[in-house]
């Protein structure tokens, strides 16, 4: 009896960890650190940055390469190009690893990549944006069935500003600073935004970078009400790449994934808004840099509260009259 139980247990164990193991899904799980590097370099200099690549999935063969990227949209996403364009020369300082040459990464293993970035002499001042990509090789084909094999790639962004003098080309411009209102009226050629007092007030702020280097905004968006109310919202220092624009985010309520149908917002104001409100943006880009300003106004009116009050009054009057009539009858 004991022997048969032992055989049964062994059979189950072998089935679970032996036979079945061969058909388990092949999982890929890669991590990269740091996720972004931001370097300001002089021509003729080189730097080395250490990346850690960790494999938390099944054993895998990976290779590495560097490609250029450009902004995909106004929200900080990247569009990768096929190859690295620009003057920066990339190589690995690791003794046994080269870019674009595969290497093995066992389960749980971490590989440090020592990425050397070299700038030739006399390179003109400009920005160059790259991604270091770590890519798995595709699994082997499966005969006799239809299959879709997946190749996983993980990236880390590299932002390089080339400057021979240390001076950064800062040319920002506020392109849009406004509230997104459903109700607008035009008076004397000016568009006036009106919100219900209880509604949230979405605010969008876009800044265009016309310079040849990336810039990082700082500063705040300030709200001032007609009755002395005021609040400040700090602008998050996110990169605006050269010759692009970006939606600025202010903490704590920026929402770039604003539901299914609403546009992304820099800030969402909440409260009981009554009367006129001034919104001002004061944006700087570091020491000795130009400051740019933007301002807009909106009005809060208690439509819903008034509607509710009018409804209650109407119902009260109606009921009072009705009961008065009944009493008279």
């Amino acid at each position: 009896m004991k022997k048969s139980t032992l055989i049964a247990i062994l059979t189950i164990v072998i089935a679970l960890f032996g036979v079945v193991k061969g058909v388990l899904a092949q999982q890929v799980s890669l991590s990269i650190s740091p996720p972004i590097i931001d370097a300001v370099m002089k021509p003729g200099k080189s730097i080395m940055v250490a990346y850690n690549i960790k494999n938390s999935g099944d054993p895998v063969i990976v290779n590495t390469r560097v490609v250029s990227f450009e902004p995909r949209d106004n929200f900080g996403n990247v569009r990768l190009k096929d190859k690295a364009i620009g003057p920066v020369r990339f190589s690995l300082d690791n003794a046994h690893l080269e870019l674009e040459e595969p290497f093995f990464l066992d389960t749980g293993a971490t590989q440090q990549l020592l990425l050397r970035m070299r700038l030739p002499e006399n390179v003109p001042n400009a920005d160059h944006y790259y991604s270091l990509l770590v890519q798995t090789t595709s699994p082997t084909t499966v005969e006799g069935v239809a299959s879709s094999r997946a190749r996983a790639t993980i990236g880390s962004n590299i932002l390089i500003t080339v400057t021979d003098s240390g001076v950064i080309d800062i040319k920002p411009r506020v392109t849009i600073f406004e509230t997104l209102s459903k109700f607008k009226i035009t008076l004397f050629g000016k568009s006036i935004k009106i919100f219900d007092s209880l509604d949230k007030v979405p605010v969008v702020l876009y800044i265009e970078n016309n310079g040849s280097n990336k810039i990082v905004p700082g500063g705040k968006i300030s709200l001032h009400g007609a009755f002395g109310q005021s609040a400040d919202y700090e602008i998050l220092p996110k990169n605006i790449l050269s010759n692009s624009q970006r939606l600025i985010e202010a903490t704590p309520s920026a929402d770039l994934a604003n539901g299914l149908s609403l546009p992304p917002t820099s800030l969402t104001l909440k409260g009981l808004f009554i009367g006129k409100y001034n919104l001002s943006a004061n944006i700087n880009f570091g020491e000795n840099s130009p400051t740019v300003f933007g301002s807009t106004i909106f009005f809060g009116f208690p439509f819903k509260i008034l509607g509710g009050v009018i409804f209650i009054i109407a119902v009260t009057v109606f009921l009072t009259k009705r009961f008065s009539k009944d009493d008279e009858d």
Partner: protein
Amino acid sequence: MRKNILRAVAVFLLFILSTGIISAVSMESPRFQIDNANVNSASGNKSSSGYKLSDTIGQTAAGRFSSSGFIVRAGFQYIHSIIPFQFSISDINVNLGTLAPGMPSTATTVLTVSFGSAGQYQVTAIEDGPLKTLNDANTIDDTTCDGGAETCDESTAKTWSSSSAYGFGYNMSGDDIPTDFTTASHYRPFPDRTEPTPEPAAIVMSSVNVGRDRQATLTFKANISPIQPLGSYQTIVNFVATPGF
């Protein structure tokens, strides 16, 4: 007694001093000097006459490093992230089985992105051509869904439920997916990088919010016509996960 106390104090002092020595590592050469605040990491101030370096590798916070030659910052400075960017695919060999005409076959894989404290990322997908036999003689075209008003493309998901609508496509469900995948019957074809004019990769997951273990299930679907030649049809789909900037 006094001697013992003296010994204990000496041992304690030695311990403290030795701990101090191994907690910070300095490396230098005629060209550079690296001061590390943490022996287990590459983080800390790195400087030379040629450069300064800031990074988030290891276990300390992000910082900023500079010199006359360059300045480097690593990690998202507004968040001071030290958590790596991680991307997982639960199964990279998705088996659609033996295809039968008019009998759609589906299989799933789960995409997971972890971005502990700096949440902006995207995952794109693009195929190395449509499903085709190993000798490239026959292909299963990418789906156009049910057709008519329900014609899908690489950027717009539409209903694909008709058993007479043939092709190969995918559906998404879960976190951070495109909003046009409103039901489990909504599909898109993958963009094809082998087209004469390569199609741009499609975003299948994206988020600007801080997130750990953001998961989306990608369902592959293939449906063949009665005249589809027999064979082992295969393709490779490239998933690329990149952080924002």
